[in-house]
């Protein structure tokens, strides 16, 4: 069994910046990531884009190449294509890599599971042809794949970015259906003065919107009552705005309403979590350096709280500094001295983040299913009506509801329905989400073939290995 000072799970901006920092300070670092190349979702394929000209993706994307270069130059053991299926709070990680089932041990662990898109449970959201805006991005970045004449619906910077990227590439877009409610603009306006200290970020956003407007594609604002049309496949999107109902034909509908931490790793480790009132999602509790309720486990990047790629770079570095201190390689004073500029930067970024969070806060009508026949659990096909029936039969806890209805028991392990179920129970019980809690999650992190598990042999007794260190 290989042993490391620190193992990092996830090679997005947070994991990469932490790994670079740790390796440059002389720590033995392992990075495990499912991708064949580092970069995470944001910098996917940045080192070898399949697009004729990756510049259409914008400077925020191409800037990732520098980080990848620094990562490749540092002395890091990178397990590319490694699927970490068990993270133990005893420092043990079990993972599948190149057809083998492997085990490593680390003194410190840093989990950087990244974000996932908030599900948008509108009627018809499980029809083939309905995808997320993030999916449009992933397909573009990794496979140079686009869908002609798609509808983009929802709210948030990522949605506008992918529309702009499509337009730059000359890909026809049927419409942008913006669900940001009027009230959000009013509420966010109050936060504008503080956010304006970061004019460049605001400008970036406004430029995107102007780019879309200039293109002349239909843009509908303040849309409500969204519904995907179609029986066997998506054939279009129906919605209402300004008292009028519209139907737009399209065989691909891309939905988006912001991102939330991908919780399964931090939840399966039984780390303490809290409900983020502003972002309406659960996140792992950490100190400013990413240290969790289990001291030798840290978390950074969007998986520890949504802060965007720039924030992830910083939180990754901060976690690394604290880990170096915990490893005895940095004094506390030295950690704090080196961390000062990053901590200041985080503080400076916060007002703009708060502004974005407020402006694009999802509405309950889109965050929670509204029609009784809408599927909440895509895997086990449990509708809103099924869940309500389970609740009425006494299942008032997410886990009890799961046991009774199978909602959350399928292959996605609750990733899609977890927040919805917490939100519904919170509404039905008229209690705060903190009181409701979340699914009890466990390893494996994803479907594990019986063969993969069978291959695992605890070759060296972990207790001895730990003692030997």
């Amino acid at each position: 069994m290989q042993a490391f000072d620190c193992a990092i799970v996830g090679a997005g901006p947070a994991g990469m910046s932490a790994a670079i920092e740790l390796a440059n300070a002389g720590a033995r670092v392992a990075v495990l990531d499912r991708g064949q190349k580092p970069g995470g979702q944001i910098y996917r394929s940045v080192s070898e884009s399949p697009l004729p000209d990756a510049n259409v993706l914008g400077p925020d994307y191409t800037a990732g190449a520098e980080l990848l270069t620094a990562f490749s130059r540092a002395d890091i053991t990178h397990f590319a294509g490694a699927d970490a299926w068990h993270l133990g709070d005893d420092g043990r990680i079990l993972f599948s890599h190149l057809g083998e089932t492997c085990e490593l041990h680390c003194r410190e662990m840093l989990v950087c599971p990244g974000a996932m898109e908030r599900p948008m449970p509108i009627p018809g959201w499980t029809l083939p042809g309905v995808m997320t805006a993030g999916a449009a991005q992933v397909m573009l970045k990794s496979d140079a794949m686009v869908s002609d004449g798609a509808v983009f619906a929802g709210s948030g910077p990522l949605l506008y970015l992918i529309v702009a990227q499509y337009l730059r590439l000359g890909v026809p877009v049927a419409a942008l259906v913006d669900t940001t409610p009027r009230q959000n603009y009013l509420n966010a306006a109050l936060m504008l003065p503080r956010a304006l200290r970061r004019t460049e970020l605001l400008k970036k956003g406004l430029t995107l919107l102007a780019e879309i407007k200039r293109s002349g594609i239909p843009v509908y604002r303040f849309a409500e009552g969204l519904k995907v049309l179609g029986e066997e496949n998506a054939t279009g999107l129906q919605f209402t705005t300004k008292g009028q109902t519209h139907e737009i034909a399209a065989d691909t509908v891309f939905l988006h309403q912001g991102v939330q931490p991908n919780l399964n790793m931090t939840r399966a480790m039984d780390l303490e979590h809290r409900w983020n009132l502003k972002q309406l999602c659960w996140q792992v509790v950490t100190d400013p350096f990413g240290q969790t309720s289990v001291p030798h486990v840290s978390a950074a990047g969007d998986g520890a709280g949504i802060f965007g790629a720039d924030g992830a770079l910083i939180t990754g570095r901060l976690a690394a500094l604290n880990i170096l201190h915990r490893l005895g390689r940095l004094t506390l004073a030295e950690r704090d001295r080196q961390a000062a500029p990053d901590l200041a930067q985080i503080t400076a970024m916060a007002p703009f983040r708060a502004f974005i969070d407020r402006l694009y806060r999802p509405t309950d009508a889109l965050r929670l299913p509204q029609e009784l026949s809408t599927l909440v659990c895509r895997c086990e096909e449990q509708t809103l009506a099924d869940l309500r029936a389970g609740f009425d039969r006494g299942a008032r806890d997410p886990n009890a509801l799961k046991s009774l209805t199978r909602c959350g028991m399928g292959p996605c392990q609750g990733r899609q329905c977890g927040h919805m179920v917490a939100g519904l129970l919170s509404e039905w019980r008229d209690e705060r989400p903190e009181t409701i809690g979340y699914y009890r999650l466990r390893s494996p992190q994803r479907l594990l073939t019986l063969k993969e598990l069978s291959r695992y042999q605890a070759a060296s007794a972990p207790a001895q290995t730990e003692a030997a260190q």
Partner: protein
Amino acid sequence: MFRSLRPKTAPEITLSINGHDIIATAGQSVWSAMALNGQTVTRRAALSGEDRSAYCTMGVCFECMVEIDGVPNQQACMRQVSDGMKVSTQNITESSEATNAGL
């Protein structure tokens, strides 16, 4: 309709999707090979048997589970194509029966 903007420079490989031989590019995801060839149904829903297709393409929704070389529950968005690979739509529902044992 999906289409690819990839310049035709990368090496090509052959795989089979639902019995059709398909030319794909090395490094491409199984999902993109399927979608670019009009094979967008990845699996059938477990209870209703309704068609499902890729939703997130980043490994968190498990809608794109297909059978690859006889092994079910493979995420088409996370797997890369390889020469000679056999991909098929996953058809396991609650009423599926195993074919009789190969005793």
